């Protein structure tokens, strides 16, 4: 039996354990180097698993007598075997494996992988390939952000059951007051409400089954809830259009094709039909999908964020590290093969200790910058006071509970955060715990004073009547994702136009195969590829020897955000974001879900929970 099952079965058993409350040891609190006071003397709340996320995450918090969170512990499973699977394989196929790590970031992992191999082998890609890759990456960004907001996160703010009591006429008036989106008539909302009622009455809550419906932590009036549920369904229908872009350029979806040296699609502008090379017919389809997604962002997603934001604008918890330490690798190169800061349209850099006036450069190759620690992770290093750069990464499992853990290895009741307590390693940038993701990118873009980031942020804050500090919050993270979806749509328009102009100018190249044959490669080489995945900074480090993969390490965004403590005692972004949040009712941990979901976590990159009864409602234990 492996640890993953232990965690999951352990979770199921917690509820039945009925362990008597153990008197917590009093503690005056501990100050972390990154500015948080941790006090674990209050009652402990265990949420396991955190639902509606990718993978398995468990959160334990201590609340004080006013139910304010004073200590936070997050632990998760994380893919940790890719280096073993890829060892000795062909570097040109690595993307196909990394695409399978996870059901969500498929294309982003593939892009990161081909970039790592190209970096190692010194392969330059054609300009058209750069534009097409950007179109695919940005399409994934928009798709992921929309699906994340509507299908995984909105229900932390929106009460589906309340929507059943909305007045369709008033809902229509509300919708028309905030947007010119055409699907907004009273009849439309009435039909939708009837359909929803029928669905709920049939007993199948389906996608809505994991909710604390009726909780006082929900603040929207029934009409706003009904409007949001309508958009939930519209987004579910619309997302299928966005992924057609992956089918067009990647040949198929799911699991589109990628290629070291460029993109796998040829261009034949005079061709016809839906298969074979890219032709005008298919470019026209891409063109029309871009128009549609821009319209969806402008008329549905952004207005919804503003409507929800206006009703929760005094709920500004969850900032965590976002106002202190954030990291972005940058992405979306304007021109091919130039990964310097000035050529990347998504910002790059590191901010530490809240110094927004100082953006540090980031170098993936510098062994002193990005390092992973395992002091509090279930792995073993020779010297655990030190971190390892990913090129020298070691992944040796070592599962043991800390001395103060409650329960057993197969049935954890309470973790001991003083010992090892997570399968996630702790990556640090020059020793600092960092937040990554849309908010990190937008904070950096804002701090750099780039108008394309600064102006939309200022407009949102102004329209909601909020100060700049409000950006550093759960709501800020959710709003930054929406702004980024909108931004990405406009960039898709830019790269589409650029691609078409280049084709019209006679450049049809989509791949560089000069160094395709391994005999043209050096005997030994190494490289790094990076992207900004929807949920944050992602990089793959590869070592190639004799034409085969010698080592492959991925540091994924949720490793940064979901990391446990490090040897210096810094807490990671998830843990930091939960600190000092008041809970309405610890038995209904909506506030915890809301903040953790705002990161769009993606943990195990594949997990399988086999609860016998199919019940996936989180077990919440308050003791």
């Amino acid at each position: 039996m492996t640890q993953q099952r232990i965690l999951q079965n352990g979770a199921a058993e917690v509820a039945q354990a009925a362990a008597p409350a153990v008197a917590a040891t009093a503690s005056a609190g501990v100050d972390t180097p990154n500015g948080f006071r941790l006090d674990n003397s209050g009652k402990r709340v265990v949420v396991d698993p955190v639902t509606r996320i990718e993978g398995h995450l468990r959160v334990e918090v201590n609340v004080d007598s006013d139910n304010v969170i004073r200590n936070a512990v997050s632990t998760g499973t994380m893919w940790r075997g890719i280096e073993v699977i890829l060892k000795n394989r062909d570097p040109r196929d690595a993307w196909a494996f990394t695409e399978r790590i996870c059901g969500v970031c498929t294309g982003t992992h593939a892009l990161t992988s081909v970039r790592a191999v190209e970096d190692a082998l010194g392969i330059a890609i054609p300009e058209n390939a750069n534009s097409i890759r950007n179109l695919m990456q940005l399409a994934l960004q928009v798709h992921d952000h929309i699906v994340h907001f509507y299908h995984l996160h909105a229900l932390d703010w929106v009460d589906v059951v309340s929507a059943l009591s909305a007045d369709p006429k008033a809902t229509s008036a509300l919708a028309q007051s905030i947007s010119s989106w055409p699907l907004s008539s009273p009849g439309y909302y009435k039909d939708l409400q009837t359909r929803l009622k029928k669905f709920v009455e049939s007993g199948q809550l389906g996608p809505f089954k994991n909710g604390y419906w009726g909780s006082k932590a929900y603040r929207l009036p029934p009409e706003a809830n009904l409007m949001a549920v309508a958009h939930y369904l519209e987004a579910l229908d619309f997302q299928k259009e966005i992924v057609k872009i992956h089918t067009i350029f990647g040949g198929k979806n799911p699991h589109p094709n990628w290629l070291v040296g460029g993109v796998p699609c040829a261009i034949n502008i005079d061709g016809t039909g839906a298969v074979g090379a890219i032709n005008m017919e298919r470019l026209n389809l891409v063109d029309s999908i871009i128009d549609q997604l821009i319209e969806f962002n402008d008329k549905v997603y952004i207005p919804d964020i503003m409507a929800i934001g206006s009703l929760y604008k005094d709920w500004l918890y969850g900032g965590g590290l976002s106002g202190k330490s954030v990291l972005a690798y940058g992405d979306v190169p304007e021109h091919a093969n130039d990964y310097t800061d000035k050529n990347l349209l998504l910002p790059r850099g590191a901010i530490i200790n809240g110094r927004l006036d100082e953006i540090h450069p980031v170098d993936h190759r510098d062994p002193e910058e990005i390092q992973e620690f395992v002091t509090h992770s279930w792995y073993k290093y020779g010297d655990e006071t030190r971190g390892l750069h990913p090129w020298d990464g070691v992944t040796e499992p070592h599962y043991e509970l800390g001395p103060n853990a409650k329960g057993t290895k197969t049935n954890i009741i309470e973790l001991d955060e003083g010992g090892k307590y997570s399968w996630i390693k702790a990556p640090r940038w020059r020793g600092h715990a960092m937040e990554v993701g849309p908010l990190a990118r937008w904070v950096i873009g804002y701090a750099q004073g780039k108008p394309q980031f600064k102006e939309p942020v200022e407009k949102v804050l102004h329209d909601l009547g909020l100060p700049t500090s409000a950006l550093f919050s759960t709501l800020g993270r959710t709003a930054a994702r929406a702004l980024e979806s909108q931004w990405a749509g406009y960039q898709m328009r830019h790269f589409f136009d650029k691609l078409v102009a280049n084709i019209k100018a006679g450049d049809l190249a989509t791949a560089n195969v000069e160094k395709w044959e391994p005999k043209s490669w050096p005997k030994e080489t190494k490289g790094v590829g990076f992207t900004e995945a929807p949920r944050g900074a992602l990089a793959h480090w590869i070592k190639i020897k004799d034409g085969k993969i010698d080592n492959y390490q991925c540091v994924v965004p949720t490793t940064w955000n979901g990391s446990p403590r490090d040897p210096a005692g810094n807490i990671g972004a998830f843990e930091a974001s939960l600190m000092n949040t008041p809970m309405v009712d610890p038995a209904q941990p909506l506030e915890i879900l809301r903040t953790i979901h705002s990161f769009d976590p993606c943990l195990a990159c594949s997990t399988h929970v086999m609860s016998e009864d199919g019940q996936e409602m989180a077990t919440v234990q308050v003791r």
Partner: protein
Amino acid sequence: MARRVLVLGIGNILWGDEGFGVRAVEAFHRRYALPEHVTLLDGGTQGLYLVQYVREADDLLVFDAIDYGLAPGTLKIVRDGDVPKFTGSKKMSLHQTGFQEVLSAADLLGDYPSRLALIGCQPLDLENWGGPLTEPVRGAIAAAVTAAHDILLEWGVDCVLRAEPLAPELALLKHDIDHQSYESRRGADAAGEWRD
């Protein structure tokens, strides 16, 4: 117009027997040629993102690893109304969306398939990162392919037996992740030793 049929394999090929569904649809495709109105899909762990394919289908056949509590490698076929019950306990990758939720979402959008069949295989080991299918599960693939053929025949689909199994380079999964290449490499074998 011919009914639209979707033959879908789901699961993660990197996780031991979790790969059954995808490997079964891959094997089915290598063995049979299908008419235009039938779509074969390696759904991987796409969860909710599969909803559009399910919505388009009049008839849906799913291969998946399902924990029925039976002997490893045992195939169990369930139909229509019973399908959601069995797919409910199984969480796919996309944010732990069970296939049941994908079906629910299709229903909520007003496009539920009219005929459903699930060919489930009892896994032995779902936790072997990077590992191959276990012997009993690998051994069940041929029978699963035959079962799919019989169900499709009953649905009026003409599956044409190929003279030779389709070459791996023409199969559903390429780039070294087709079943044979994936499992025959040293990396995959070494992954077994890596277990806790």
